[in-house]
């Protein structure tokens, strides 16, 4: 067998750090999708899945945040039981709720872009709470817009019906999740305003 003489192209230290956090945020989003919290006003099971989207954008910025959620989707398509209810596969992405999933990387990128306004994330304790609230509301709007349009196309529904069926039921829960997660990153809950690098 012929020997290969190729130089090893090492991945840079900062990239390794962002990459490792992106992997864990993807795994955390997958785990959040499996854990339900009983919620008084909604019959729908309440998972923390969208909290993973917020955290990806807030911690990792627009590019690496989107990478984290793309990893989450790829792992699900590859067959790991990471989507809601322990399901997996390409069919979930194509199915009626696929729009919500597909919108996650877009929403994380938007949240990261609004919060950090640059590719490398700023330290989280420099981000003001109103800016966070604004970015999370924008991210949530993207998720529901893409998700509802997708639902209406896939099921041949008028858009208004799709908004009611797919969106309105979950909006109170998602708003509560956003409030619960929002101050985690800036509010001194994480040790010393911990960022992902340094």
């Amino acid at each position: 067998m012929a020997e290969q003489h190729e130089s090893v192209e090492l991945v840079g230290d900062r990239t390794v750090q962002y990459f490792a956090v992106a992997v864990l945020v993807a795994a955390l989003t997958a785990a959040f999708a499996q854990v339900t919290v009983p919620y008084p006003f909604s019959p729908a099971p309440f998972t923390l899945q969208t909290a993973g989207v917020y955290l990806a954008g807030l911690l990792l910025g627009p590019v690496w945040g989107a990478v984290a959620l793309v990893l989450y989707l790829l792992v699900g398509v590859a067959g790991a039981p990471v989507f809601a209810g322990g399901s997996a596969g390409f069919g979930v992405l194509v199915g009626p709720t696929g729009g919500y999933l597909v919108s996650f990387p877009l929403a994380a990128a938007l949240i990261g872009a609004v919060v950090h306004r640059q590719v490398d994330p700023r330290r989280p304790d420099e981000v003001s709470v109103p800016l966070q609230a604004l970015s999370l509301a924008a991210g949530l709007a993207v998720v529901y817009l893409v998700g509802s349009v997708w639902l209406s196309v896939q099921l041949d529904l008028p858009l208004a019906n799709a908004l009611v069926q797919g969106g309105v039921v979950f909006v109170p829960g998602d708003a509560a999740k956003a409030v619960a997660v929002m101050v985690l990153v800036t509010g001194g809950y994480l040790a010393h305003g911990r960022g992902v690098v340094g």
Partner: protein
Amino acid sequence: MLTYEPDATLAHRLDPRSKLLAQLGFAVAVFARGSALALGALTGLALVVLAAARLSPVRVLRAYWFVVVLLAVTPLFAAVRFGPPWLAPLAAVDSVVAGYRIVLVLFVSGAYVRTTPVRATRAAIQRHLPGRPGQLLGVGVGLVFRFFPLVLADLRSSQAAIAARAGDRRSALDRTRRLALVGLMRALDRADRLALALRARCFAYNPTLPPLAFSRLDYPVLVVGVALAVSPLL
């Protein structure tokens, strides 16, 4: 739950790339060809695929129960109009047909999930997505797959701890915050250790990949996949 199961069926012996392509082609054909004849033919094909993967359709439907429930209630929603004439019963029929297409796609993707290990899909991603993004996404898929059970166990243990300390008397908001905080802190600690381990092992953009090879079986599957994908153009 539907995940990879080791077996020796026809579908297990195929290369992941031909299965991915056939899956994609099937989805394109299902959504682009609307006639009853086409849907009948695609139903037959989906059943052949399930048989090749030795997977029962009932099991697929149970694995995707939440999608099935959503599809089942949709005709009720579809028939309602927010304005006169308030009810449109024919629209319910349209949405039943639309839901049936999704069930067909679920059958085929369920067969893929049962017959393809995650590492094979990862190898396909890493080999065929170009450049550094392809390398990072390929390695990332492998790592997320390894870390998912650990992070889930972290969350379950902190959920149990919260319950043991009478946490169910706290508000939903407070419980959510505690759970998210513990999950996030442990995930970030794991990320630090992972980054250190990757650097210590000379994490590179050009590693050695697991081998992938087409067998004779793969070529007909590839042809069918391509044919289905371009069928809307015919």
